[in-house]
């Protein structure tokens, strides 16, 4: 038995020594996931991006991933293991991996790191995010056109800037169509919990909203909206199957083009660090088909989308007042990215107290 084990383990050792030699010409791109790669939401969107990298760059690239990585020391270890396993670039795809990514990036100056949705950068550490609020603005405009009561429901996850930004953009879009438009917010305090999200949807509909959007990942709100006969917007992925006659459009996380672009930059040696915040124009997010709406609303949505892509329209352009009526942006003034990234107040028209 002992001899057998020794034989097996020495054979394995030889295999492991031989293995790296094969992979040397390829660029290795690695991904750290907070959830399961088939979660139907956030992580799956990143994994679809990874598969797109495999498909487009083919033999030039090798990808690897670690899924269900808890935030904290486990994340640091997973990222370090990837860095040591020969990855040329590591994408850490959750806000909670921030300090761990920073720590590992310090130890491995030759490896490139990219951290999604964070704000700490280094020479070999870039941060990237998508301007999801651009899609929210379009949704707001559609909501104001479609709603008869002038009130929309918003299922929110956690009161972090990303989410507050989305609510504000939605309100601003709606007010560009109907200046008296109001939004009711329910905080579900979860990113993914079908039960809680369905309850939140029911509460909102009982309060009289006739159009609804969500910043949580499950399809439960869409199903509730379909049952109760109101219109709704999908989140993160196309939820048209959950509400064939309900979904107006959805914001799709399409990370693939971004990943391909950045990995190519590593191959060419043109990769640089930075704070990359792409939008509809770059394709890091996109809109699901505009459905279940009259042609004029659809035309308006398409026009707004085109204007945002061309840079002609920026959702956060003054005059904008804060919720308490004081001025935030003067007429024609644009919000800078730094303010947006730390946004912690509502604009006028949000019918909710921001949790402190």
């Amino acid at each position, binding site marked *: 038995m002992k001899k057998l084990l020794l034989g*097996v*383990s020495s*054979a*394995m*050792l030889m*295999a*492991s020594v031989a293995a790296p030699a094969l992979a040397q010409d390829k660029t290795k791109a*690695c991904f750290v996931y907070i959830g*399961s790669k088939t979660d139907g939401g956030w992580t799956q969107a990143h994994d679809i991006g990874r598969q797109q990298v495999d498909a487009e760059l083919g033999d030039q690239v090798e990808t*690897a*991933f*670690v*899924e*269900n990585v*808890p*935030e*904290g*020391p*486990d994340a*640091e*270890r*997973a990222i*370090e*293991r*990837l860095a*040591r*396993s020969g990855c040329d670039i590591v994408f850490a795809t959750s*806000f*909670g991996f921030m*300090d761990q990514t920073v720590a590992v990036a310090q130890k491995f100056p030759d490896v490139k790191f990219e951290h999604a949705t964070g*704000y700490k950068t280094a020479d070999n550490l870039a941060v990237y995010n998508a301007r999801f609020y651009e899609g929210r603005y379009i949704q707001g405009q559609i909501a104001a056109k479609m709603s008869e009561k002038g009130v929309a429901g918003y299922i929110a996850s*956690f*009161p*972090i*800037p990303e989410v*507050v930004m989305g609510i504000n953009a939605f309100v601003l879009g709606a007010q560009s169509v109907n200046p008296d438009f109001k939004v009711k917010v329910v905080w579900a305090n979860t990113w993914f919990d079908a039960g809680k999200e369905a309850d939140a949807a029911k509460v909102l509909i009982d309060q009289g909203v006739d159009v609804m959007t969500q910043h949580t990942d499950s399809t439960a709100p869409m199903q509730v909206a379909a049952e109760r006969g109101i219109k709704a917007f999908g989140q993160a992925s196309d939820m048209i199957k959950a509400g064939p006659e309900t979904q107006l459009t959805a914001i799709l996380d399409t990370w693939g083009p971004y990943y391909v672009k950045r990995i190519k930059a590593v191959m060419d040696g043109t990769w640089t660090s930075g704070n990359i915040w792409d939008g509809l124009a770059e394709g890091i997010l996109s809109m699901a088909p505009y459905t279940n709406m009259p042609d004029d609303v659809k035309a308006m949505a398409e026009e707004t989308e085109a204007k945002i892509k061309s840079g002609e329209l920026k959702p956060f352009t003054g005059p904008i007042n804060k919720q308490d009526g004081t001025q935030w942006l003067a007429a024609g003034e644009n919000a800078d990215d730094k303010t947006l*990234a*730390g946004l*912690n107040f509502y604009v006028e028209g949000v019918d909710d107290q921001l*949790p*402190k």
Partner: protein
Amino acid sequence: MRVELVKRPQHSKLFSALSPLIALALTLLCGAAIFAALGKNPAEGLYFYFIDPLREVWSLHELAVKAGPLILIAVGLSVCYLSNNWNIGAEGQFIIGAIAGASLPVLLPDFQSPVVLPLMLIFGMLGGAAYASIPAFLKTRFGTNEILTSLMLVYVAQLFLDWLVRGPWRDPAGNNFPLTRRFHPDAVLPEIMPTSGSAHWGIVFALVAAVVVWFLVSRTIKGFEVRVLGASPRAGRFAGFSGKRMVFFAFLLSGALAGLAGISEVSGAIGYLQPVISPGYGFTAIIVAFLGRLNPLGIVAAGFVLALTYLGGEAAQISLGMSDKVARVFQGMLLFFVLGCDTLIHYRVRFAGRGDSMAEAR
């Protein structure tokens, strides 16, 4: 045809001692079969799982980081389980210990001095012990089932931490993200050998606790009391031991050790509080306690084995593209085979036909 388990009049000392090793070997065999079924080379799979993480020094450090809290918690739990107190809530005691210890650097960031860290560790132990005293009190005063109360208090602790870091303890400079401020350098549990890896003093606490509790249980009157009251509460009462005092002793000790694990993890490995600070250490430690046969020294070995399955799971994901679920399967198989081996050492299986059992009944 019936399958019966019949208690063996005597069980083999040799096999009792070998049982965890047999279980480990069976786990490896079944693991190899699973790798083969998934279309991977079994030898390669096992190599990445169990040997690759041990090849480099930094990875050994990571093993210690992972094993530290498991051992510390499981050592405390062993005293509980030996004395027949079923504390399932170590996860909650871990969290409350972390919160209590972290209160110093979070609420008094300007209080920076070398006494901060020792105070934090003491607060952590007190916090964990205080939280564990709740199920102990309910058990002794009202006869409440401690399995339920201690388990449910885990969820209370998790939600309390979640509320703290999203609300009153949120870092004012942290863009509203649910994190507390980073601990100042005086509040960070140092690394043992910073040049070679990230293992912090938590593993040392764990090893010391294991030796102390081993001595306590096997060499002192108190340990005798623990074992007698666990094996037979009635006999314990005749010997003059108090069952109620033992409930408190076991819960307070295991709560304090879980709390120490919590503050060590937060201070040594994370550096701030966040909504989730434990990947289920308090529950995995239950497996560790039984895999170590409730013997603190066995628990040390078991803690490292369990930690290895976590690390190996990652290595296999990266190198072979296996799902992280396989690591869970390994942990589950390990516990299954340990319990199975133990059962078969103490009992033998008898296939009894209908006739036999009738005959026996007469």
